[in-house]
């Protein structure tokens, strides 16, 4: 078996992402349960974490460690790996008229590096003290000081940083491959502007990875030195924690935020741009026509990527940013709405022009769902992009709602669209359409049921990152809403069993897919 074949590498990434998403979803269910029933004893919790969930009730530290693992697994191993590395590896050579990626062995190596990073991450939660508590953003100084700041902040947090540093290397190796493949392995007869939109999105995503992951790598190395070698890059003078006075002097926690978000904001586009490419491909295929304003779509993708590199400061409006800087970051953030709207209207125009010819297959439904969710999530971004509004919303569930919709659900809908559409290429079989449609409709409704009410919790000032907010009087009216969110989240997770059943059943018993499984017309710009 040729492990370095691009389709095999795509499958390896697909399985890694699938395993990661299952882990991430299970963690979110445990957290959602704890949020609304914080004092209910659960035997499973005690079985899983005997010391940190004594009597079946989890400690706030355990909640925070689950939060950290959930965010890290979802952002890095699901939203970063699946859209580019799984589907990009599968389709890029095919779409470019090639039979391979530029560096097949390097491609496989980047997978092994990513897998090593995953094991380091899992190792970080299996330490004696438990997993790190600092969230996926790992803000110093608490993340830089070591075990004194809490259980899991010792070896667990160190392993977490190593995991992220190794992940950065894997992402860079992967982006080298995608960029070199597009530039040099592309068919000589294919000018860049005629490249398929999905390929364009993978290409630009790889450039974003190339420009942003090295910054996270540098920041990760500096913070590891703060933790392990006694340097003071991010730790300020005179920090007192419990009875411990930190010997570090002169460092700046804000410096980490600048470096982290210089990576962190492009990361949002690393997650969502490939989904946009997949959606363009699928909408084109099942509307039987080329995407309206194809050239504009390419320039919109470029604009989103360029602006995405310049707006990291909008994550720091409440961190003490200079107000003039905040205005600049705010204006640039709002500007992203323009190319995003260009994309959305072009998709809608494509659908409008093809009305009557639309075929509502499962991948098409997920692509349409993506457009809906992308618009919803984008609109709440307009609120958060304004410093005065963000001052209120920043630490509330409004932000949780925003990024779960735009970065999580939208990107996952893109992944689902790609999975259903390209499953015959991935595994040679067709997923069941009826099960797929049931899965889509329930997922679509329950995604909104889970994440839309979080906006209202945010309006009410419900703080995020808290392990327990049931004891606050001012939040008492919100608790029924939060319980509703938890129930919707459990239902949403339960619905995914339909997809898993479809996947397993198809792989086990499914018959081979026909040559043109979706019956698309290869001469009409919609080829499979």
């Amino acid at each position, binding site marked *: 078996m040729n492990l370095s074949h691009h389709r095999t590498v795509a499958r390896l990434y697909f399985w890694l992402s699938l395993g990661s998403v299952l882990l991430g979803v299970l963690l979110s269910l445990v957290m959602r349960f704890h949020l609304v029933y914080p004092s209910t004893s659960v035997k499973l919790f005690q079985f899983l974490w005997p010391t940190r969930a004594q009597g079946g009730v989890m400690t706030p530290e355990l909640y925070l460690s689950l939060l950290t693992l959930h965010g890290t697994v979802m952002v890095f191993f699901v939203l970063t790996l699946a859209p580019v590395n799984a589907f990009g590896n599968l389709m890029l050579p095919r*779409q470019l008229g090639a039979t391979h990626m530029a560096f097949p062995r390097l491609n496989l190596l980047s997978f092994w590096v990513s897998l090593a990073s995953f094991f380091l991450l899992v190792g970080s939660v299996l330490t004696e003290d438990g997993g790190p508590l600092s969230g996926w953003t790992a803000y110093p100084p608490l993340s830089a000081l070591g075990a004194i700041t809490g259980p899991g902040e010792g070896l667990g947090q160190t392993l977490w940083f190593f995991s992220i540093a190794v992940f950065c290397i894997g992402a860079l190796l992967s982006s080298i491959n995608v960029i070199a493949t597009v530039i040099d392995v592309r068919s000589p007869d294919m000018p860049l502007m005629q490249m398929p939109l999905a390929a364009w999105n993978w290409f630009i995503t790889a450039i974003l990875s190339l420009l942003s992951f090295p910054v996270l790598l540098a920041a990760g190395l500096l913070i590891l030195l703060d933790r392990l070698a006694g340097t003071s*890059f991010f730790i300020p003078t005179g920090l007192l924690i419990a009875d411990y006075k930190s010997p570090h002097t*002169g460092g700046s926690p804000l410096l980490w935020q600048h470096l982290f978000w210089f990576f962190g904001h492009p990361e949002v586009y690393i997650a969502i741009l490939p989904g946009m490419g997949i959606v363009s491909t699928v909408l084109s295929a099942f509307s039987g026509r080329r995407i309206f304003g194809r050239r504009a779509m390419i320039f919109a993708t470029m604009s989103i990527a360029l602006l995405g590199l310049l707006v990291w400061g909008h994550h720091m409006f409440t961190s003490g940013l200079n107000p003039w800087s905040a205005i600049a970051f705010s204006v640039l953030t709002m500007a992203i709405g323009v190319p995003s709207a260009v994309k959305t209207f072009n998709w809608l125009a494509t659908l409008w022009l093809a009305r009557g010819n639309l075929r509502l297959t499962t991948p098409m439904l997920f692509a349409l769902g993506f457009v809906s969710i992308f618009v919803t999530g984008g609109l709440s971004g307009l609120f958060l992009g304004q410093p005065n509004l963000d001052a209120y919303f920043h630490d509330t569930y409004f932000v949780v709602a925003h990024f779960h919709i735009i970065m999580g659900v939208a990107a996952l809908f893109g992944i689902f669209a790609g999975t259903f559409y390209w499953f015959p290429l991935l595994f040679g079989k067709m997923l069941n359409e009826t099960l797929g449609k049931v899965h889509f409709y329930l997922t679509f409704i329950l995604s909104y049921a889970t994440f839309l009410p979080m906006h209202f919790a945010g309006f009410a000032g419900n703080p995020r990152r808290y392990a327990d907010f049931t004891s606050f009087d001012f939040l008492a009216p919100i608790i029924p809403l939060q319980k509703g969110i938890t129930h919707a989240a459990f239902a949403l997770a339960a619905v995914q069993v339909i997809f898993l059943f479809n996947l397993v059943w198809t792989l086990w018993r499914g018959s081979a897919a026909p040559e043109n499984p979706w019956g698309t017309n290869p001469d009409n710009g919609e080829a499979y």
Partner: protein
Amino acid sequence: MPSLTQSNIGGTPPIDPELPFGGRGDGDSGRGSPNDGSTRAASMTAMVVVMCASVMTFGALLSAMVIRRGLSHDWHKLPLPKILWYNTVALILSSILLDLARRMLRKNKRRYFNPLWTAGTVFGTLFLVGQFVAWEQLAVGGFYLAGNPSSAFFYVMTWAHAAHVVGALLAVYYVEFLALKYELGTRGRTWVSASTLFWHFLDLMWLGILALFVFWA
């Protein structure tokens, strides 16, 4: 070869049977290598991409240094060991020698390649050894990683540069190995071009770091 038309955009373009690996082929042989499919052009592109990643890494470190220095009053100028200047000469000499070797190979003056490349390799190795001596001298002088932020950034930047040098040296040694066995084929020549290009980049990166600590830090 069937041409790509507007009508089949977004689909699967035809594959040119004359280019079995679908790409533009190797610059030397006109074909991709059957071993791993990589081509000379792709290798050079990858090298440029790697350099971009390195620029971003050092850019992040540089911006961290600017902010860290501006935010506090504990910054002291670091006395640079004199050996750094000798190291600089060794690095530049190695770069010149490796490039001369590459040019000789391109002009088919194969017999000049081995001595020039070997000399370049030796000077490159000397640079790395000299860096270890410089770190040792700094430590003896009481300038540690965990000391003043100026020494912390010096160690971080020079270590990061040295890590790049180690990677490049492995490539240079590999070429040396091939050259000494007279097995410098098409792929070997791609390694020569790519590693020389990266070695020049390491020169520029080093000169930048040195200038930073001489004139500003």
